């Protein structure tokens, strides 16, 4: 049991960036917009957060800069898909390619530089509880904030008036527009929210998990976050459960290596990617699951004037 504690703790840390990115994308997709650019926004967030944290010496500044960079990139996506009605799949791919290129370009001087790792916070009393303290109260602030984000997103999508409007827009933008709902403004805000969370997710990689800047360091996590949204059938609670499962899968390889499992490391590293495929197959196998849960207008352009 004691041996499981570090495993669970590292799973939580591995899952946290996925939670940020996937919860943001959940909101974006619930508004009917498919943004495939998470990977690009994460990388930009990672490099911006790293650079800002190094320059300022403050992790909060780093995360704020990462969120701002993610928003900036998401605005390009928003302008193209929402105003110019470009194909969302193509534009999302462009965003990822652009983010990969831009982050490598901006960050070429930062590779290999050190940065102070965001420290875990100790909560007086709670952290000292045997076992439970190690299990629940030994994380950095971003882990707790990710839980808060989940609660917030869940409340927003199910209880708040704006959240219900957002969902209506995702199902039927034409009807929502006809009854006077601001389709474009809502979608813009959703896209920006997704940009901010993806940026934070990226900064979590470069400030907590690694902590340093490496070109292309997100290594497909943005795409896994996209798969998690499908896996969670666009529901925040399931998305978070999925993220923890995936965090576990990514950590499993480290422990398997530790235990000396006679499997080449490359095969263990394949696990998260293979698991993504398996999970998608399980969820998509029944077309009804997708039909009933996927926002009806997902990926379709809508413009009030045309």
């Amino acid at each position, binding site marked *: 049991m004691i041996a499981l504690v570090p495993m669970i703790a590292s799973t939580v840390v591995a899952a946290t960036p996925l939670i940020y990115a996937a919860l943001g994308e959940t909101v974006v997709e619930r508004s009917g917009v498919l943004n495939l650019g998470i990977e690009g926004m994460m990388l930009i967030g990672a490099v911006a957060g790293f650079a800002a944290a190094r320059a300022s010496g403050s992790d909060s500044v780093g995360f704020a800069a990462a969120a701002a960079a993610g928003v900036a990139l998401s605005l390009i996506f928003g302008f193209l898909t929402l105003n110019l009605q*470009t194909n969302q799949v193509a534009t999302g*791919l462009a*965003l990822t390619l*652009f983010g990969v290129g831009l982050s490598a370009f901006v960050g070429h001087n930062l590779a290999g530089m050190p940065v102070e790792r965001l420290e875990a916070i100790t909560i007086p009393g709670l952290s000292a509880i045997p076992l439970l303290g190690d299990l629940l109260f030994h994380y950095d602030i971003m882990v707790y904030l990710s839980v808060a984000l989940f609660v917030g997103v869940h409340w927003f999508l199910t209880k708040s008036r704006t959240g219900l409007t957002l969902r209506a827009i995702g199902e039927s933008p034409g009807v929502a527009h006809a009854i006077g709902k601001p389709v474009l403004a809502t979608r813009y805000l959703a896209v920006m929210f997704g940009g901010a969370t993806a940026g934070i997710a990226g900064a979590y990689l470069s400030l907590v998990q690694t902590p340093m800047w490496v070109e292309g360091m997100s290594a*497909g996590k943005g795409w896994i976050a996209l*798969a998690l949204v499908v896996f969670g059938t666009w529901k925040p609670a399931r998305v978070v459960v999925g993220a923890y499962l995936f965090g576990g899968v990514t950590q499993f390889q480290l422990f398997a290596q530790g235990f000396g499992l006679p499997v080449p490391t490359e095969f263990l590293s*394949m696990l998260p*990617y293979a698991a993504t*495929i398996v999970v998608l197959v399980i969820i998509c*196998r029944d077309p009804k699951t997708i039909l009933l849960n996927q926002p009806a207008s997902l990926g379709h352009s809508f413009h009030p004037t045309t």
Partner: protein
Amino acid sequence: MLRLERRPTPSTVMSYVSPLIAAACMLVTGFLLFSALGKDPVEAFYLFFVKPVSTSYGIGELLLKTTPLLLCGVGLALGFRANVWNIGAEGQLTMGAIAGGGVALWFGDSDSSLAMPLMLLAGILGGMAWAAIPAFLRTRFNTNEILVTLMLVYISQLVLSWLVHGPWRDPEGQNYPQSQGFGDAETMAALISGTRVTWGIVYALGLALVAWIFSQKTFAGFRMQVAGLAPAAAAYAGFSERRNIWIALLLCGAAAGLAGICEVAGPIGRLQQQISPGYGFAAIIVAWIGRLHPIGVIFGALLMSLLYLGGESAQMGMGLPSAITGLFQGLLLFYLLAADLFINFRLKRVETAAAKPAAPAAPAEAAA
């Protein structure tokens, strides 16, 4: 005042002009970027776009890098036209390289004339097999091919990494993660002496031609175009969606696999951990620049190849990071998507009482 107005029918002219607008915008951005970095923009432009192709060796390099981009781009364009979003050409390329490279290693130093044809065949089959996975999962389990093809990119790269670190590592390679060098009969000779360009470019151009005939003149090609342009009409006409998905993915897998084996049997000459600087991803942009048309893709591939060469040249000549290539690639696709607005819309002058016809800048700028 200018306003956007929907055209009655999409403009064919604009669909050809739009890549030029995008390229021009990319150049302007490049000019500003070089200036901002404190480099002389004229010198930078010369280093980036002219110097790499100012010698016959340089032209050879241009065609060499065009080969994988063109092969993957043609394959992707066929799929995109049919609404099949295969974005994992990079993985299919890697698998082609592994399969073909495996055959090359099996032949060793043999000078059998069978070696090269079998390697090419294995490369093609390797790419096809890798593309068959998303085709099967999409047609059988309704699984989104975007995510599956992308995940398979990472998996294929790990397979390659395992092979060159483990079973296929050159025992005399001083522990470098690479295989033995291929024998002479297992390496593609230069097509033109004094350059490194191989027969691969001929295969690629041939494939572009075949793809053009396929999409324009055959019923299967027609079905795929209808499926892309009007899915409902295709379904009503009884065109099988499954068959389109299979054809699109297998053709692209074959082309990308061929690109992979042409790379490792050509300029690289062995299997190693890194065999492509993202050709399979850049080919997505190539397909778009080429208007998803096999002949247009040739121009797209040449342009993208020049961006790769320019990035290397700028790195050597000015100390700019070669990542600038990726930046230009991304910008180009953004500009292209934006410029495509004018295929379906046009600017129209609207006379209003208050506004004078003065400010064309705002909408035009917004559209660029």
